[in-house]
């Protein structure tokens, strides 16, 4: 252990909360309980500080008006990908054509404008339990710099039955060529056989653009709603492996690969938590690091099949037919702590499990 780690560990050690601090906090708690007992509704919701951006943009805008709402149901599939979508997910022209022809992706032309701020759904891709939707946000007025931390204050997606879908979403850190902000939503569901996003109707609602912070700064109020039919065809493939990963005691039953996600089904939960899938070995000899490509996911335990399931979205879309093997390995503590990740050991230092395509 180096010195830096030693002093950090020392500072992290729990300390004894002194009696005088406990007494003072006890008094505060007593006051709070008494107050809650007298007036359980103490503190009605207050209007937050709207900050300078809101003042700049919302002068005279007392009523929210939908100027133009041209959202159309369904998606129009064409071969030409949206440039930002292709760039964001590092998809070359060959893979663009392949995924378009497979019916896994669709270009959309649905937009809504509220007080001069237009949100346009531009492209979607869905495969199994993952779907990505890209939106473009443009405005006649000045939009904040992309790196300022713009976000929609509330984002949700529901299916046709009104069931809420798990998602993660964010603006990209750069504006696109036309000066629009790019916003992407990743939808995710539990990997259950026969359940897939493909062909499903979902409604995505984006509410209020703000600059994130302890007290978000409101830039534009509004609710942009998009009913979207996700692309019909699922391009994922399942590979039965039934192999132990080295001597780790961890058995991989199968792997499900899709252009947008990878899902591992383990026969048991590994005792060696540092043994993780590190990379996809491609047929051309290249390695795609999974640690830096993971883009959200979940760990689950199927109590019926007794399988431990690890699923991850991929930020770089892949050609599943070009994958030769999954590479597993041990990560050092430093690598595990490194947010950026991405470093992959040499191929000979990893354990390879071939996909037998």
């Amino acid at each position: 252990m180096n010195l830096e780690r030693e002093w950090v560990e020392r500072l992290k050690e729990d300390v004894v909360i002194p009696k005088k601090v406990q007494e003072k906090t006890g008094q505060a708690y007593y006051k709070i309980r008494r107050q809650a007992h007298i007036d359980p509704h103490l503190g009605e919701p207050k209007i937050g500080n709207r900050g300078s951006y809101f003042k700049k943009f919302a002068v005279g805008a007392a009523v929210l008006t939908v100027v133009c709402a041209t959202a159309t149901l369904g998606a129009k599939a064409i071969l030409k990908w949206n440039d930002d979508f292709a760039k964001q997910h590092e998809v070359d022209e060959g893979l663009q054509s392949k995924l378009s022809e497979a019916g896994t992706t669709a270009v959309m032309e649905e937009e809504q404008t509220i007080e001069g701020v237009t949100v346009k759904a531009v492209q979607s891709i869905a495969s199994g339990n993952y779907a990505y939707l890209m939106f473009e946000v443009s405005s006649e007025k000045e939009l904040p710099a992309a790196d300022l931390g713009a976000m929609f204050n509330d984002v949700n997606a529901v299916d046709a039955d009104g069931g809420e879908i798990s998602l993660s979403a964010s603006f990209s850190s750069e504006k696109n060529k036309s000066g629009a902000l790019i916003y992407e939503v990743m939808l995710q569901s539990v990997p259950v056989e026969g359940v897939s996003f493909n062909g499903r109707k979902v409604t995505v609602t984006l509410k209020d653009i703000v600059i994130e912070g302890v007290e978000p700064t409101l830039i534009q109020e509004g609710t942009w709603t998009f009913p979207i039919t996700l692309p019909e065809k699922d391009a994922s493939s399942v590979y039965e492996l039934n192999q132990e990963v080295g001597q780790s005691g961890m058995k991989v039953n199968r792997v499900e690969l899709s252009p947008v996600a990878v899902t591992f089904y383990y026969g048991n939960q590994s005792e060696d938590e540092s043994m993780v899938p590190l990379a996809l070995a491609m047929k051309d000899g290249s390695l795609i690091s999974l640690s830096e490509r993971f883009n959200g996911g979940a760990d689950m335990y199927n109590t019926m099949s007794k399988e431990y399931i690890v699923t991850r979205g991929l930020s770089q879309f892949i050609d599943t037919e070009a994958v030769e093997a999954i590479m597993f390995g041990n990560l050092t503590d430093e690598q595990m702590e490194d947010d950026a990740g991405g470093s992959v050991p040499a191929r000979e230092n990893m354990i390879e499990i071939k996909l037998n395509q």
Partner: protein
Amino acid sequence: MKHFPRFFRLISVYNEECVRTSLEKKEECTVEILIKKARNKDPDAFIQLMELNMQSMYKVAIAYLKNEDDAADAIQDTILTCYEKIDTLKKTRFFKTWLIRILINKCNGIRKKQQSHTNLEQITEAAVWEENYTNVEWNELLLSIEEKYRIVLYLYYVEGFKIREIGEILEMNENSIRTRLSRGRKKMAIAYGKEIGRSNT
């Protein structure tokens, strides 16, 4: 994650920024539920939330005020203010940043009051931690470097705040935070080295 079939047990969910251990994520879920309840003025949830953050609050207050009595006052005021204002907290994930910012404001308030009564020049940074105080060793290590460095160092390494969040808490720009972190790291290495030297002799 919502709407799981019954035969699935969710161990953890990752968002685009987080790839952490299942245990940490479980703790985050618990905290999120507590924050939501606290926002609805549930006193039990709020108190539980405060107790979960007591170590952090105490350590930050000591790092600022170097005095248990003042730290106790700052924490008490912080708890009351947080309860009063928690319904204005928009995003649960900013709870800790918000809490620490309020605490630091309280600490600054206490110090300003002290300054009006004391000639600050008479107080040296190397304040002696009284023997009858608790956590003597911990405090000696933290207080061994100047305040401007120790606060940033503590928030970054111990509390795990990002540079941008620290900037928001301390109302400083990110470059200044980076500089303080870099210098603070060196100073702490020297201070810790000296301490090891002392304990070895």
